[in-house]
């Protein structure tokens, strides 16, 4: 689940990870060529050199997210992420942000089901200070009721902005809750409003004290830096934080899904219907993960842009939908989903489009993909690895997300080779495995009944 929440202003939203495909150089197996270290306290360090501009992105990722929260206390991970911008024993509330601003830096943070991350982008000469401040708040956070109460209101406003003001978001939340009966991916990352209201200072402190530790963190430094210097600075700062005994990440496992599920939401604020269906699917590290790379290619073949099968058949050839596609999020720590979606053309019934989409899926399962389709999809994905190197922050996010979600640097670096190795038969087998309607959940958004726009 790569729904990321940023703690700060909406205008500083991060790129969704889905657009940052892991990258590769066509000639070699290497993608980002990072330098890696491990500190004595167990903190992992990854350095990606990029000397185009005098800029560095400094990120710390914690291997804990919303899916690690205690039952009945959704929203802790994200609430805590906001509170990390308050003070510590050594620094006054807001001082960290003030320092970053005065040095011409930018900063933000994000929370997903599987990880929580903090970053600053700044001139490289300030890297040591960023590390000192980030290491300080790894253990020194000070929370009082005066600090947490206004921030609770901020988060409830954030929830209203993102979710309650938006019927599509409300439906997504309901669909996620229907997709997973038992696994915490069923919960919204931001939390249910009534549970956010009930979180106590003790809940937040306990989560922080349990999970925020160097041996549960990954340091990623990307930009105009020297890896040896980064290691020296990391030892002086993070290296002084003591490791903790970490509990296992207990994730309840989904029982087998035996029947299709459907959530139909009608809302007076809806003028344009929307339809999507997601199927439970393996990730790189969960379920039948030998299918993961084949599913990435399948997603590109059927859902890639305006030349994918779904768009070509139901948007261009049959003129039934205004837009349509597919998505797959292989980076999740646990069982993920493969999805298909469309937005019907004006005046076309949702069921007519769904029927045409189902025909395409049936045809795919019966006849499979072609060697030519696979070859072209591989080329696009492998090329995307080169484009992903064209920034300072992008590679840091790709590597950070991977390492925080059960993958290794070697997995990321060999991604192009693994994509290259996938066969037609493997894609066909993955398609037959994933497109099982009994393992699907459908979400339909409609205007209120009786409205002429249905």
């Amino acid at each position, binding site marked *: 689940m790569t729904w990321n929440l940023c703690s700060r*202003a909406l205008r*500083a939203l991060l790129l969704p990870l889905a657009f940052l495909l892991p990258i590769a150089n066509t000639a070699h197996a290497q993608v980002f060529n990072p330098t890696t270290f491990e500190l004595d306290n167990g903190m992992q360090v990854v350095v990606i050199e990029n000397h*185009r501009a005098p800029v560095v992105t400094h990120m710390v990722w914690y291997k804990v997210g919303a899916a690690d929260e205690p039952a009945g206390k959704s929203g802790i991970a994200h609430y805590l992420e906001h509170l990390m911008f308050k003070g510590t024993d050594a620094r006054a509330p807001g001082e960290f942000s003030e320092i970053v601003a005065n040095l011409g830096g930018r900063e933000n943070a994000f929370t997903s089901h599987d990880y929580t991350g903090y970053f600053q982008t700044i001139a490289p000469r300030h890297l040591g200070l960023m590390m000192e401040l980030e290491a300080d708040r790894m253990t020194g956070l000070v929370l009082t009721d005066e600090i947490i109460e*206004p921030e609770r209101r*901020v988060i409830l406003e954030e929830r209203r*902005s993102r979710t309650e003001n938006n019927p599509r978001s409300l439906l997504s939340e309901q669909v996620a809750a229907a997709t997973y009966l038992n696994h915490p991916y069923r919960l919204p990352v931001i939390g249910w409003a009534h549970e956010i209201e009930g979180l106590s200072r003790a809940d937040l402190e306990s989560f922080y004290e349990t999970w925020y530790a160097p041996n549960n963190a990954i340091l990623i430094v990307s930009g105009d830096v020297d890896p040896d210097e980064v290691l020296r600075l990391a030892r002086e700062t993070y290296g002084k934080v003591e490791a903790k005994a970490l509990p296992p990440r207990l994730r309840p496992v989904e029982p087998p899904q035996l029947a299709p599920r459907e959530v139909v939401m009608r809302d007076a*604020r809806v003028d344009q219907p929307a339809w999507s269906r997601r199927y439970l699917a393996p990730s790189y590290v969960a379920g039948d993960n030998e299918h993961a790379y084949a599913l990435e290619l399948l997603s590109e073949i059927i859902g890639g842009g305006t030349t994918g099968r779904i768009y070509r058949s139901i948007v261009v050839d049959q003129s039934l939908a205004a837009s349509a596609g597919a998505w797959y999020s292989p980076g999740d720590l646990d069982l993920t989903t493969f999805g298909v979606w469309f*937005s019907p053309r004006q005046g076309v019934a949702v069921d007519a489009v769904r029927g045409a989409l189902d025909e395409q899926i049936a045809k795919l399962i019966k006849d499979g993909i072609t060697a030519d389709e696979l070859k072209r999809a591989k080329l696009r994905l492998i090329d995307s690895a080169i484009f992903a190197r064209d920034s300072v922050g992008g590679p840091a996010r790709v590597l950070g997300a991977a390492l925080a979600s059960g993958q290794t640097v070697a997995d990321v670096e060999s991604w192009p080779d693994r994509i290259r190795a996938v066969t037609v038969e493997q894609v066909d087998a993955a398609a037959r495995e994933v497109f099982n309607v009994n393992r699907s959940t459908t979400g339909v958004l409609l205007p209120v009944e009786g409205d002429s726009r249905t």
Partner: protein
Amino acid sequence: MMSALMRAPGVALLAVALTFVPVAAKAFDIQRVISPGGIEAWLVEDHALPIVSARFLFPGGAATDPVGKEGLANMVSGLLDEGAGDLDSQAFQTRLADQSISISFNASLDGFSGRLKALTRNRAEAFDLLRLAVTAPRFDAQAVERIRDQILTGLAAGANNPNRIAQQTFREAVFGDHPYSRPVTGTPESVGAITETDLRTFVARRLARNALIVGVVGDVTAAELGALLDSTFGDLPERAEAFTIPQAEPGAAGEVIVVERDNPQSRVVFGHRGVARDDPDYYAALVLNHVLGGGSFTSRLYDEVREKRGLAYSVFSYLLPLENAALWMGGAGTENGAVAQSIELIRGQWANVQEFAISQDELDRAKANLIGSFGLRFDNTSSIAGTLVAVQFRDLGIDFLNRRNDLIEAVTLDDVRRVAERILDPAALTVVVVGKPEGLAATRTMTNGG
């Protein structure tokens, strides 16, 4: 602008290099490239990756849409890559996809722009597809209807988007009959009225060599780019048709407009007159705005509305210097029961800054952030190319990137006080609220569907 086209066929490529020093020691060179055919582009060569990014712009965007055909520029932007020359829509899109080339277009109020990104091995093909898109778009009926329907479904999907409603209502209020009041994406009626002739007329009038502004960054030399400029844009008409957008003075001062919607949170957009991009006080205004509501996590609005009271997740202000009007704007989102309080706090900060100006310390910190953060955007080819286009569009000069931080540094407390006194006026703020605000005195209320 850009009225003087250098026409010197056969003249050797002219490349004047300027060195830009973004933060400290590092630098990149901006070259002014004039093609053999006389087309100008600004180039930053960067051979670290086998990637080239190009951005370009033709002045005259949605504000030039004919009355009743609002959304024309936007519709053209969706159709130039939907078939050109001998290639129909699917053939064109397949050529792009099979070579990992991205080409896209965009219409704003003041301009029609585009971007290209490709790997070096596909560079020639990428620029050739761009040539086809800008010089020989097909506008096949099937593609036109498909894109029209995408725009219409997008309008329907956004019809209840609180932020979109607030922005559009604000512009209609402050700009009245001026073209800036019209929605860039049009209305269902106006989009339905656009014909193939309208689309072709827009292309013929706007896309011309004398109007073209180009910025290129990446794995290409000045000589290679010179040839690409001629092959790509050489067949465009020589001159764009002249157009005039009248200067607009924002109206509706002091109005509080409520657009009723059944949402738990009220979305607020506010603003009044601003500072033009070529106003000598522009940089003072930029610094003042940073203190007021431009600094992400350190501004006065952020501190008063979010940090101290938790009334909003996002609250901010910004300068919007359009070509023919200037606005000083902001936004926030607060639950219906407390939105009146948020608006009072925003007005209060506006007044506070106006009356007491700001301290030397606040000024220094704002300047430090604006200066230090300027270089951070230059970390990828596309954003550097975009900056090269923006600097040319605003006629700031090829040395602007070197001068920009000095312009910020030179802002004094007196400058900022002068701008505050001259421009800021809490009583003049036009406020638009979309939601069900409680206890808010509205000067005008619009109900759903109205």
